[in-house]
């Protein structure tokens, strides 16, 4: 049962859940006590708030977390210090969570019984004043209680690990995930998740939903860490930044979508966007220079902590006769290396990067939409958003994640909890388009003259690159072509088709086992 976790891992997990619990306790306190006014929300005419962070709680928390940190720093000299520090911090978490929950209930009770502000017809600052577009106010009592319960549960899990409780991801769950995982499900699942996020951004932008997702992710990641194979992959030093990339990309996407939702709702109501609320100018000294200084100090501390905590990898000295398996490019090129599964090197390694660079440079000249400059929005530039976000999040980040975490020896796919077995055999029975057309559809031998043999593929390619653009320009992109001019629109459509070529080829591989559309040695596509 415990073969996967050793005492060090258990201790790490205990601290992991301690932090998760602190996060939820803080969330509970925020919902219970803070002035919850959404971005750009109007509070004129609201009664003053009465919710207050209890005066005794602050000093008590400092008195618990402070010594905990101190003991932790001196743990080398204090026997049992780590456990004592843990106990203090856990106590503080529990105290904060429970007080917040209890106070939230208390506020609700006072109000219901005709206490503070209950007589006023209009809402008060004690209520949640949501930003435009994000739905109605939340029930603060309920959600303070929910997050405090979550905090207590996480803390309980943490204590279980502290006392070596055997909480691991059940093996049927691991086997289930592994058997469902595959390049197809992973990629399609991510693409669907992306589409759903964009489509239902109004729901996702809601802080409660987002925090719920954060908690689920914390739990899923924590449970996954009990699996040795998962741990080995995510804690490889060079892979750690990618965990950071996932968190940052997801977090920033959420922030941008949230502001976009708010701005779109405000524009619909005739209000100025959030970015237009702060029109005044400030002097660079001190406003900007100090922000920069604080950022630099914070980043320096962060980098030093990272450097001390995680040694840079150094493997055996280079041996040109002994290739490691898998041999992987640096992580930021793993999306391209993944493309090697579907394309020959001249496309994956040269063609696609060139198109990416050219395409990126072309964006400002192809996007002729004047809306959406200088503020976050989604509704006023839906096509640009969908395309770029798909390219960045799905075709770039998701494929990097796939290449880093899920591709093992021989570039075979391995589930997150699967051992990297160098002898895993995956049957490859890919066929070319010429096989499909001549042998399967027409039931005859393939012609030996290459141009004739490849005629179906060449025709398809010619249609895709030369016939489809004019058609698209007269139909789907008609409005765009009228606005941007034909030449510009043609370039845009061709670039879009090239980009769409990646997922299309991937899907052809998954459905028809298609290897090459055109199979001319040296010019395989």
């Amino acid at each position: 049962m415990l073969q996967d976790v050793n005492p060090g891992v258990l201790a790490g997990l205990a601290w992991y859940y301690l932090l998760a619990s602190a996060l939820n306790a803080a969330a509970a306190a925020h919902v219970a006590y803070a002035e919850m006014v959404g971005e750009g929300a109007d509070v004129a005419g609201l009664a003053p708030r009465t919710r207050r962070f209890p005066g005794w709680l602050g000093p008590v928390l400092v008195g618990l977390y402070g010594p905990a940190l101190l003991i932790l720093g001196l743990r080398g000299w204090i026997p049992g210090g780590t456990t004592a520090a843990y106990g203090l911090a856990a106590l503080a978490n529990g105290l904060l969570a429970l007080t917040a929950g209890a106070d939230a209930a208390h506020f609700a009770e006072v109000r219901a019984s005709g206490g503070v502000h209950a007589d006023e017809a209009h809402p008060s600052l004690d209520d949640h004043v949501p930003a435009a577009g994000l739905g109605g106010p939340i029930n603060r009592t309920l959600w303070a209680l929910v997050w405090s319960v979550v905090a207590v549960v996480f803390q309980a899990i943490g204590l279980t690990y502290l006392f070596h409780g055997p909480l691991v991801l059940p093996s049927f769950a691991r086997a289930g995930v592994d058997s469902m995982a595959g390049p197809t499900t992973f990629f399609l699942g991510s693409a669907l998740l992306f589409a759903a996020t964009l489509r239902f951004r109004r729901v996702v932008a809601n802080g409660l939903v987002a925090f719920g997702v954060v908690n689920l992710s914390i739990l899923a990641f924590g449970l996954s860490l009990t699996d040795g194979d998962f741990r080995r992959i995510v804690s490889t030093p060079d892979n750690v930044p990618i965990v950071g990339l996932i968190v940052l990309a997801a977090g920033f996407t959420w922030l941008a979508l949230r502001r976009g939702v708010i701005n779109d709702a405000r524009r619909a109501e005739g209000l100025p966007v959030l970015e237009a609320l702060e029109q005044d100018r400030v002097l660079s000294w001190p406003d900007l220079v100090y922000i920069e200084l604080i950022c630099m100090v914070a980043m320096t501390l962060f980098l030093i902590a990272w450097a001390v905590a995680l040694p840079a990898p150094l493997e055996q000295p280079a041996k040109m006769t002994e290739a490691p398996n898998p041999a992987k490019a640096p992580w930021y090129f793993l999306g391209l290396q993944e493309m090697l599964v579907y394309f020959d090197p001249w496309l994956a390694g040269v063609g696609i990067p060139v198109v990416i660079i050219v395409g990126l440079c072309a964006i400002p000249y192809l996007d002729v939409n004047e809306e959406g400059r200088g503020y976050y929005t989604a509704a006023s530039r839906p096509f640009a958003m969908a395309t770029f976000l798909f390219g960045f999040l799905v075709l770039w980040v998701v494929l990097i994640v796939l290449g880093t975490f899920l591709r093992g020896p021989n570039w075979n796919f391995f589930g997150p909890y699967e051992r990297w077995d160098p002898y895993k055999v995956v049957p490859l029975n890919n066929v070319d388009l010429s096989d499909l057309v001549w042998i399967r559809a027409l039931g005859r031998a393939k012609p030996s003259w290459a141009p004739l043999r490849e005629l179906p593929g060449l025709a398809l390619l010619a249609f895709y690159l030369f016939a489809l653009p004019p058609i698209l320009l007269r139909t789907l992109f008609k409005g765009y072509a009228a606005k941007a001019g034909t030449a510009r629109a043609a370039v845009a459509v061709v670039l879009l088709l090239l980009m769409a070529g990646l997922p299309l080829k991937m899907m052809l591989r998954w459905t028809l086992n298609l290897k090459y559309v055109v199979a001319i040695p040296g010019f395989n596509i």
Partner: protein
Amino acid sequence: MPIRDRIARTQLWKSVFRHPMPTDRRNRVQVMLSNFFLHLHPVSVQKQGIALSYTWCMGGATFFLFLVEVVTGVLLMFYYRPTLEHAYNDVLALRDVATLGVLRELHRWSAHAMVIAVMLHMYRVFLTGSYKPPREFNWVIGVMLLVLTLLLSFTGYLLPWDQLAVWAITVGSNMARATPVLGLEGPGANLLTLGDGVKLITPASDAKYVLLGGRSVGEAALNRFYVLHCVAIPLAASLLIMVHFWRVRKDGGISGPL
């Protein structure tokens, strides 16, 4: 007179700082104009443009990480010799022998962070539509900076000369062999052939050879990557960063609505 004021009145102090402490409006303007490092900034900025919720500070973070790379990189160069004989052992010694044994860690993790930060910076610039006129060309300069950042990281990846390094670069540089026309195994490699069958693209002259200075990752590649990594690309990146910052200002400062 307090000691602080006395110092501020010395000739030495005044020769360095041309104005009193920036505590009032006049001197806050002065400091931005007269200090070389600060004059990158405009004297005043729009409040929303510098809001963290708007820029995410990712462009600034990229620049800061670039500076960290320059400083730690120069220090690393004191310890590192780019030859097959020394490279690996020098890197090994960095952990075990050198004072401040986290230099290499700082350099490597900041490099990763810089790649992430530059990608997220581009993401933010897209999301706020900041590439729209008049900032189109600064976006293009940005794309070049993105490519340079990736190349910086890629060339540096080889230098430790361990298994991880050489094989990652081998995987990467194998792609060059498939460059159309210019690579030995790329489509159209035979196009560059002189009249009577003298091929111009050979294993000793194709794109991969140019990249590596040899047929495979070896001493010449190490030297080439070292020079690119420590001199050529940083210089190019510095130049483009200067242009990038100049253009941010000339295009009207950080973008905003209207």
